[in-house]
């Protein structure tokens, strides 16, 4: 399966990366990791990319890493459609102090607008 994973530097990133790589190894997915050029997070895009590269090397899979600038939600949806991806994977929301799941604006945009199947990783 041709899978597009979108990650930025938020708390959800590691879980999404971990789970997607694990599945890619199992299912022999053709994986592309899109690093979103967002700056309002704990980790910078460079750090996120380095983490992704480490994880992919460790799993020993041949995946593509690319950087995505512009509006992250619509870019992800665009790329998935234009390049014939079967599935789009993103983080499944952050938790509030109370423990409530809160979906970010990128997640919302992707859920409402993607034509391909979307997986939220938690």
């Amino acid at each position: 399966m041709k899978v597009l994973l979108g990650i930025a530097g938020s708390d959800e990133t590691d879980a999404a990366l971990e789970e997607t790589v694990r599945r890619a190894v199992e299912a022999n997915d053709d994986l592309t990791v899109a690093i979103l050029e967002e700056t309002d997070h704990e980790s910078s895009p460079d750090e996120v990319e380095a983490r992704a590269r480490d994880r992919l090397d460790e799993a020993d899979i041949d995946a593509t890493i690319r950087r995505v600038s512009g509006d992250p939600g619509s870019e992800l949806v665009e790329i998935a459609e234009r390049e014939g991806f079967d599935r789009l994977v993103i983080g499944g929301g952050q938790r509030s102090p109370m423990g409530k799941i809160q979906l970010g604006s990128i997640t919302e945009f992707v859920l409402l607008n993607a034509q391909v199947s979307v997986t939220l990783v938690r």
Partner: protein
Amino acid sequence: MTGDRPHSDEQADRFSEPPQTFEDREGREITIRALDPDGFDALAEMYAAFDPADRAQGIPPTGEDRIEGWLETLVDEGLNVVAWDGDRAAGHATLVPDGDDGESYELAIFVLQEYQESGIGGRLMDALLGYGRGNGVENVWLTVERWNTAAVNLYEKVGFETTNAESFELEMSFRLN
């Protein structure tokens, strides 16, 4: 959390601190008290019995261990009031600090299914906000799913105002002090 927070001393003054005892609309005698450590197990039992269909945004979690872990955070960090029917917990409302400033708190409230629509949720809000006001809480905020009419109506009735309506969930807030 940012956004304009409505302020009204008049509104905030009307809340009363726990304990409060009253008869609910089903004729049960209910007492609302601040949670003390002895009440923890009964509260965990209430959540174990909670209908999964009434969960909101992933809380309460399911399973004994996850429920207890979640409650421990609320008890360690937050302000909690519980509605008791004898020694049975019928409802719970909580304020958990945001972390950044010690003034802003997130609110949640749960009433066990068989006790809903009997006036307990309204009284719990009153007691929780009275308790919070007494403890120097300044801002209270929450997010709620748009379709959760019971909760949205309850929050509006208490005086919460919507501060962000741009996403799936409404963000509402109230200024206490």
